[in-house]
């Protein structure tokens, strides 16, 4: 949790007090009723290994949805199913009201789903700016001949998208490394550039696979702030996987918990925190 957020919450505390005894979540007044993505009865297995079995949950427009669970619970597999890398053997995925057919990941990108990876998947040989510009590729239309001339419409288009990329660079405060090859950047900045590349695509649904893994406290605070700001300013729906429970509980509106490929809990952070199945999955069964 960021320092500023703590103070904001404590400031809000007196107003929240009379209404109930529940501890305040990140934004108690947020209401989401429009379902953006619905996953129902999804099962996925690789040969004999069952990665997901009969998982159902939904992601509403505008919310921050966390997917948590112990290692090997199927969280990353779930994200891979959502953006079309894996095709579940059973179950349906309904995105923006349409049941999705079997497809390649680039179709998901065209429909407005962007993501970052657990272990950074940047284009290491390209500069920060070029990496972010690749996020704009889907929006660029000029064909081979204009590209070959790099003149007129092709150049105008390039500049329009450059302006958008610069907007993102400003937003993420990475102006200084604009022209640095990303392979040379430190880990925390690479994560930030990867977020920038996903944002450049102007996604409706942003999937973040452990955006704060391996970061120090300060970097985690920065990243949390960016995630909240992205959700706030761009209205992007976010689904994130994260292991740091304090961050998950503070950031997310709703949490779904997976264990051994099954859904064991789903609800607000407080509901999930109090759920005995979740406690059992994380801490083990009590004996005696």
């Amino acid at each position, binding site marked *: 949790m960021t320092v500023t957020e703590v103070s904001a919450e404590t400031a809000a505390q007196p107003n929240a007090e009379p209404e109930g005894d529940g501890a305040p979540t990140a934004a108690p007044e947020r209401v989401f009723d429009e379902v953006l993505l619905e996953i129902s009865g999804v099962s996925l297995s690789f040969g004999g290994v069952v990665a997901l079995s009969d998982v159902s949950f939904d992601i509403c427009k505008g919310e921050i949805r966390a997917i948590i669970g112990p290692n090997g619970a199927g969280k990353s597999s779930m994200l891979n199913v959502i*953006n079309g*890398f894996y095709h579940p053997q059973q179950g349906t995925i309904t995105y923006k009201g349409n049941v999705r057919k079997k497809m*390649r*990941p*680039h179709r*998901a*990108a*065209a429909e407005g789903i*962007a*993501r970052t*990876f657990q272990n950074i*998947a*940047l*284009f*290491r*040989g*390209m500069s920060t700016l*070029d990496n972010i*510009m*690749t*996020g704009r*590729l*889907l929006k*660029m239309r*000029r064909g*081979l001949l204009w*590209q*070959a*001339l*790099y003149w007129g419409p*092709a*150049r105008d288009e*390039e*500049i329009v998208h*450059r*302006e958008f990329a*610069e907007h993102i660079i400003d937003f993420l405060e990475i102006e200084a490394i604009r022209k640095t090859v990303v392979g040379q950047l430190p880990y925390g900045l690479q994560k930030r550039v990867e977020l920038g*590349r*996903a944002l450049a*695509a102007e996604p409706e649904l942003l999937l973040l696979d452990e955006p704060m893994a391996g970061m120090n406290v300060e970097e985690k605070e920065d990243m949390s702030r960016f995630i909240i700001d992205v959700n706030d300013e761009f209205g992007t729906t976010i689904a994130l996987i994260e292991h740091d429970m304090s961050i998950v509980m503070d950031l997310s509106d709703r949490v779904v918990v997976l264990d051994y490929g099954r859904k064991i809990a789903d609800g607000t952070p407080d509901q999930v925190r109090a759920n005995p199945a979740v406690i059992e999955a994380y801490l083990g069964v009590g004996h005696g």
Partner: protein
Amino acid sequence: MLYRETGQFKISYAADQSVFPIAQDRWFIAAALAFAFLVVPWIANEYMLQAVLIPLLIFSMAAIGLNLLVGYAGQLSLGTGGFMAVGAYMTYKLTTAFPDLNIIVAFLLAGLVAAGVGLVFGIPSLRIKGFYLAVATLASQFFLLWLFNKVAWFYNYNSSGTITAPPREMFGVVVTGPTATAEVRYTVALSIVVVFAIIAKNLVRGRIGRSWMAVRDMDIAAEIIGIRPFQTKLMAFAISSFYCGVAGAMLVFLWLGSAETEAFSINESFNVLFMVIIGGLGSILGSFLGAAFIVGLPIFLTNAPQWFGAAMPIDLQKHIEIMLFGSMIIFFLIVEPHGLARLWQITKQKLRLWPFPY
């Protein structure tokens, strides 16, 4: 001290995105081009043009083509010689069938045919990567040469089995064939290479180049942000083969005058690949530097002993040349694995601070 960008501020994205953002670079390139176009044809002798400059230009063209594929799109290919042969034989067929056709147009059409052939041989790249893909592209090398040897139609059923550049004129000047002067052929080759080098540079700094590099660096992530890997790779194969095809046509029609399939053997494929690796993967400038290195070094090594007045038996000289050539390649790869283009970049970085490095 002269080479620095102090005081050169960019106030528009267009200026910031230009190929040579530093004014000194622009002056240097302009001067070099003016020298190459206006001065070289007058001062260079026949030997210089025929043995050094024309092959340098032609192999630069082929190296640019292969660099687009290997250096930018990350698809290793050993089929360069085959695609060059397609360009040469198609130009021959076109220009003998339509003698009135402008020879440059014939080059470009032949390049398009080569692009189509490259597209077909690029299909395995959907499934195969790296060295395995290189082996798969060997198929194109061997199949195409076999085809041009076997099917007499490609060399118009002549008894020798060679293709010969017929005399063709452009604006009243003989451009190809035995009567074309080296100066004219040099100028034509230079014009083609300059135009296509600019086009290559434009491609790689725009949308298409970024999608190539994305596929090269991380194909999974590329697909996630909406790039279609297969189409992108195929486009790289097609455009690369176009360049190689035009280079092959230039090889026969602007340099050798006549050739058999032997001129496009696997050795040529390796030579062009060495040019790309030594020059610098993913660099248009590197393609020129690599071509200059591979074309120029043997000539330098052949002539160097004479300059120092040292006479030695020709076979000994030839062996020393090969040994030196091999060891210099190894030396360069150890000193700078990213090629001559990277060395050049480092030099420029140092020059910016010189004489006050911190």
